[in-house]
């Protein structure tokens, strides 16, 4: 203990051995892993878990993964992992991990990139590739609410088949409860007339914002640094105040 440490304000996020109970291929590059927790925790949409893998020689690798599922008491949590060929953790999950395996994790972690039903709305969600994952937890939680908040989601993906949770998102929009989704495909033509075949820009954001009943009170942006910079700058250019824009960038 150093003098600068503070007394824990809440129980520690303890390491536990979660069990993989299901694996679902979501896109050609992204698989979902459903993890049952021996010590269940309450999390907020947008939070993440740290996952720790240990080799027989004691070498350890740790990574953070956002939770994709909505909070649901006792249910397995879902994380969705993008395969990075040169990585050491995502290839393990994609090529080695199997149902029944135990994975060490702790959580929930993170207290900035979070939104729960009843928080500020309308909500604008801007996701790039697997950056959709924490936004998906928010969208799913919102759909489970008695009265969903108005929410619009713009997902940038290379192609139609690489648009994560595509059909589930379209299904949300078909419920006519205030949820709208648009896709921005960067390497393919859109399948729906109101989607886009270019990177996110301010003009596109103005279209998407117009799907909401009022100006967004909060904007969540998640993806690569290039995507987050482009989308956050486009949101500023579309007139959204800086202090309403929260970003999460993955890297490393």
């Amino acid at each position, binding site marked *: 203990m150093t003098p600068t*440490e503070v007394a824990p304000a809440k129980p520690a*996020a303890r390491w536990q051995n979660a069990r993989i109970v299901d694996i679902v291929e979501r896109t050609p590059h992204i698989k979902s892993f459903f993890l049952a927790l021996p010590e269940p925790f309450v999390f907020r949409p947008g939070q993440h878990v740290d996952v720790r893998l240990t*080799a027989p020689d004691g070498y350890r690798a740790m990574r953070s993964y956002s939770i994709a599922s909505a909070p649901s008491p006792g249910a397995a949590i879902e994380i969705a992992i993008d395969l990075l060929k040169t990585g050491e953790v995502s290839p393990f999950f994609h090529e080695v991990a199997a149902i029944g395996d*135990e994975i060490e994790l702790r959580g929930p972690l993170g207290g900035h990139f979070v939104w729960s039903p009843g928080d500020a709305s309308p909500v604008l969600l801007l996701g790039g590739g697997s950056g959709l994952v924490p936004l998906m937890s928010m969208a799913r939680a919102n759909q489970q609410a008695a009265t969903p908040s108005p929410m619009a989601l713009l997902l940038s993906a290379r192609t139609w088949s690489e648009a994560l949770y595509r059909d589930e998102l379209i299904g949300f929009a078909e419920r006519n409860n205030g949820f709208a989704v648009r896709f921005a495909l960067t390497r393919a033509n859109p399948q729906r007339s109101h989607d886009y075949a270019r990177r996110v820009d301010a003009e596109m954001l103005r279209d998407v914002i117009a799907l909401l009943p009022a100006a967004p009170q909060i904007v969540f942006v998640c993806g690569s640094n290039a995507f987050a910079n482009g989308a956050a700058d486009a*949101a*500023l250019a579309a007139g959204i105040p800086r202090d309403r824009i929260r970003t999460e960038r993955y890297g490393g």
Partner: protein
Amino acid sequence: MGRKRIVIRVCLRLRQEFAQSHHAALLTAALLLVSGVPSARALECTIMVTRGFTGRGAAGGNDGRVPPGQHLVDDFPVLSAGPTPHIATDQWSFTLKVGPKPIKRWNWDEFNALPQTQLTRDIHCVTTWSKLDTRWEGVLIDDVLSAAGLDAPTDFTLAHSFDGYSTNVPTKDLLAGRAMVALRYNGEPIEADHGGPARLLVPHLYFWKSAKWLNGLQFTDRDTAGFWELRGYHMYGDPWREQRYDTD
């Protein structure tokens, strides 16, 4: 009962050493010698091995420069909580405060006229990437204080940024050549994504302590949580002790 308790205590100590040494076989053997328990129990006690995971191997060849739970990267990942601010150097200023009271303020040219120092350091981000031998140039906090005629006014410091970000660091961790206001990276002006025009550099702590878009230091009597510290991250953030979150 008594023996079980001793075994557990030995296990805990060995686990801690194990995390740093990677000598699994040796430690397991030592544990067996001390405890005399069957090997299955001893293994279960020392560590949970992930089935089928081999990794890239322990961070050999780096002379123990990679802290536990970290991995090396060659690129320079960017992490920040909001849109990237773009601050022109003619709009830039740096203010030193003691408590609420401003003591001294520099504009860009004045600050660049202060003594410049080069530091080549390893950096460690709490999101688990580490980068070795990063080259920075700027003004040591020792030299900032000298220029203001100050001598470590209080035990704690809050670093402040143009975007409203803040982070806390004990004042002693900023002194004796351990920290600087960095103005250049790899011989070039620091890019906006990486915190330019000026960022704090406290390389021996997790990198969120090295505040981007720095616009001042405030000396405080009490250790006051900054942006991430208020959101569950550690008040000190020593990568060698894996002080990632407030309960670590």
